[in-house]
């Protein structure tokens, strides 16, 4: 065990080169990892025996974040990377959300990595298949496939302090890594909602994130439950095919028009020949979304202006007074995700579509019983009810130094340092950790700064021949006090309920500022914020 058990106390001045080389050597380990450690494994009993692979960096998840992290690590010369992915393919969100109408609601030029721009987006807001194609393009261009272990569902993560190693347990295997990047996705777990009577319903059930492509909607009686980001994309498509569609809405959201158009050929040509022009486009889009933040994140005169645009959009598209009332949001814009669609309101008014705002009492054998006493009968119910998000839990148990449990520490709301590290969990980097959420800009913009921060941390471990980087508790506390203070002034904390908040109204989801500010927060990694644990 002695090779990996670096018995070192926290020390300030890292003792470099020699050991740095050792790190570099262990870097090549995975290929022969098994062999080199057989003996040690035999001694320390069954667990170690099952270690399937060791590496410098373990990445969990092969969505945009996991793949992007692998690309950036490699660009820094960090090659010893393993990606654990529970599914059989890459793509995350865009592999799973294949419902009709799936598309991004941030312009494609911004919903892509700045270090791998695509001149060929066919539309201003690309559809799911095209985004998935881009993910595959990244995977293939950067030769990421060999790094990925598919069908490995991480069930737990634990830190071995003595050896300075993270251990990820999947179904029947163990993977070890000096560092871990958790990139399992903020919205990757979907399940049917816990509605009364859901087991009784005998018709077909489909969740938006697990679409059933074999089901033929032609002439069917269809219900859509939920009018969030997915619902409003699905409804216009279903209305084209189904016999009728009844839309069950609990609370109406703000809907802004989405100027979707095909990218003209000259434009694509321009981007291809002069990448600088695409950069400029991307910057312009970025600045546009940044300025929206002023109205969406904080209550400002711009808030009222954007609300006026939303209301005008509604008035223009919906003539009936009652329907308009049903669709008028009663919370400040920005409190929940702003919806973008130009075909949702028209779809609701088609002859074969109807908006139902009666509360749902229960599901019955044949359909949905609403409180006005009527049973609405369906062949199929589509659940566009969103994702399971946990504000205080982790997606799987994570235990750190001395066996501390992240779940316990987060029971009253998640907290981290700069959204990415948690004190007591050295070398663990999270994407979309606490208070990293973009409310108004591309998730990928935020993601890039998180990835680069993690890469910087991993680089520092290498350069300083460190065993571990552990963020100081007081630094983390100070960071969170500042964040919560700033959050108090935002629209999210203005008294409305949303999935951004815990039951007690604690906001562990959103970042209270511009994307530019977030990027600045993530731009430098100050080693003074960390306890540095050196390797001998």
């Amino acid at each position, binding site marked *: 065990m002695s090779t990996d058990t670096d018995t070192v106390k926290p020390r300030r001045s890292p003792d470099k080169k020699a050991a740095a080389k050792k790190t570099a050597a262990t870097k090549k380990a995975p290929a022969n990892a098994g062999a080199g450690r057989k003996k040690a494994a035999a001694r320390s009993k069954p667990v170690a025996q099952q270690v399937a692979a060791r590496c410098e960096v373990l990445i969990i998840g092969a969505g945009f974040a996991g793949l992007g992290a692998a690309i950036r690590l490699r660009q820094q010369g960090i090659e010893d990377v393993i990606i654990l992915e529970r599914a059989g393919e890459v793509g995350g969100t865009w592999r799973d959300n294949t419902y009709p109408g799936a598309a991004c609601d941030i312009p494609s030029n911004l919903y892509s990595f700045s270090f791998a721009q695509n001149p060929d987006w066919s539309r201003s807001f690309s559809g799911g298949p095209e985004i998935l194609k881009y993910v595959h393009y990244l995977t293939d261009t950067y030769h990421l496939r060999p790094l990925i272990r598919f069908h490995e569902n991480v069930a737990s993560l634990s830190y071995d302090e003595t050896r300075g190693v993270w251990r990820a347990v999947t179904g029947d295997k163990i993977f070890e890594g000096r560092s871990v990047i958790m990139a399992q996705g903020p919205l990757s777990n979907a399940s049917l909602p816990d509605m009364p009577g859901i087991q009784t319903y005998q018709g077909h059930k489909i969740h938006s994130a697990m679409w059933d492509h074999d089901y033929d909607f032609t002439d069917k009686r269809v219900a859509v439950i939920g009018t969030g980001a997915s619902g409003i994309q699905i409804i216009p498509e279903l209305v084209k095919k189904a016999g009728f569609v009844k839309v069950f809405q609990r609370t109406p959201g703000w809907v802004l028009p989405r100027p979707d158009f095909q990218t003209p050929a000259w434009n694509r040509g321009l981007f291809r020949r002069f990448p600088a022009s695409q950069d400029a486009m991307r910057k312009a889009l970025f600045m546009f979304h940044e300025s929206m933040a002023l109205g969406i994140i904080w209550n400002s005169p711009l808030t009222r202006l954007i609300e006026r645009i939303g209301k005008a959009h509604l008035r223009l598209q919906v003539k009936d007074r009652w*329907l308009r009332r049903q669709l008028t949001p009663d919370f400040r814009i920005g409190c929940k995700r702003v919806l973008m669609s130009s075909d949702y309101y028209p779809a609701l008014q088609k002859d074969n579509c109807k908006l139902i705002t009666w*509360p749902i009492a229960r599901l019955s054998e044949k359909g949905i019983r609403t409180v*006005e006493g009527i049973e609405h009968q369906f062949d199929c119910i589509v659940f566009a009810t969103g994702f399971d998000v946990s504000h205080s839990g982790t997606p799987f148990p994570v235990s750190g130094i001395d066996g501390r449990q992240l779940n316990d520490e987060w029971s009253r709301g998640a907290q981290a340092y700069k959204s990415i590290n948690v004190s007591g969990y050295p070398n663990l980097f999270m994407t979309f950790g606490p208070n990293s959420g973009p409310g108004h800009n591309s998730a990928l913009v935020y993601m890039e700064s998180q990835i680069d921060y993690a890469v910087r941390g991993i680089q520092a471990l290498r350069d300083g021949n460190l065993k571990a980087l552990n963020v100081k508790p007081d630094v983390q506390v100070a960071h969170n006090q500042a964040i919560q203070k700033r959050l108090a002034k935002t629209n999210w904390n203005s008294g409305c309920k949303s999935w951004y908040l815990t039951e007690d109204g604690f906001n562990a989801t959103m970042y209270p500022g511009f994307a530019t500010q977030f990027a600045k927060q993530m731009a430098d990694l100050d080693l003074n914020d960390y306890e540095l644990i050196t390797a001998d």
Partner: protein
Amino acid sequence: MASIDLDKMLLKIKSTQWSLSDIDWDAPGAELITEEQWPKLKEFMADLMWIEHVGARAFAAMSKKAPNDTLKEIYSYFHAEEQRHANAEMALMKRWGMLDGDEIPEPNINLRLVIEWLDRYADEMPVYVLGTVVPMLEIALDGALCKFLLDTVDDPVCHQAFEKINDDESRHLGVGFSVMEMQGHGATYIKTVKMLAPLLDPRLLLGMASYAPLLNKMRDNIVALGLPEEKLYAAMEKFDKIGGRTADGRANPWFQIIRQHAKLVVNRSNRLYHTPVDALVRLTGHIPKRVLPAVPSWVKELTYRPAA
């Protein structure tokens, strides 16, 4: 009775839901309606159904204005429950052969005016105005009318339906009076003045001008049915008794206004009130249909069919 726990009430409401399909609308008993009863009952049921519908629209407005999320959700349930009552009453009419095909029966003109007012202005009214008027309408019209019905109709399906409806109503009243007390709590001079400010709002006067004749008109209808009007008054007095049971309730200026108004309604010898209001009833009776704007689209949501 102290103020109720609204969170518990919401859970209770959610756990006691019923549907039209819980009732067998073709069960025997429809023949118990006598030929003599039939025409009057038809008119009565149509009015009753519309009153439920008015209540529904008022709750919809209150849901927008509710001071907290629990109350907001409770009101959105009550909105739907009133619609359910209207649907169930329409199903009874269907059962008794009182519907003209699939046509929704016409509301009387006073109801029609109230619907028009609600649709235009209710969303603008503060919650304490509707929060007082609605319990009054519920206790006087909804409550009293249902009771008359059960006293005169023997059809067991009717009794079955109204047992469920009355269960709902008791919760509506429980919440209604509790909220009136909440609004009266800590009444200071300033608060009272503020709460009375809408009296200067012409939109509210318009509302009063449709509310007052409605009560008189319903009284006339009850008399026409051969029922003693005292029963209506007894129900209205219940409003006074329950609403005024606590200091907070009495401190609510709107409770005082509605209560004083009820006294006027009940006192038939007060010419100063009844002469002009009855005149208004007669006058409104002459409003030609075509000058009224089209009924709002929510009205078309009514159905007697348990499944859709």
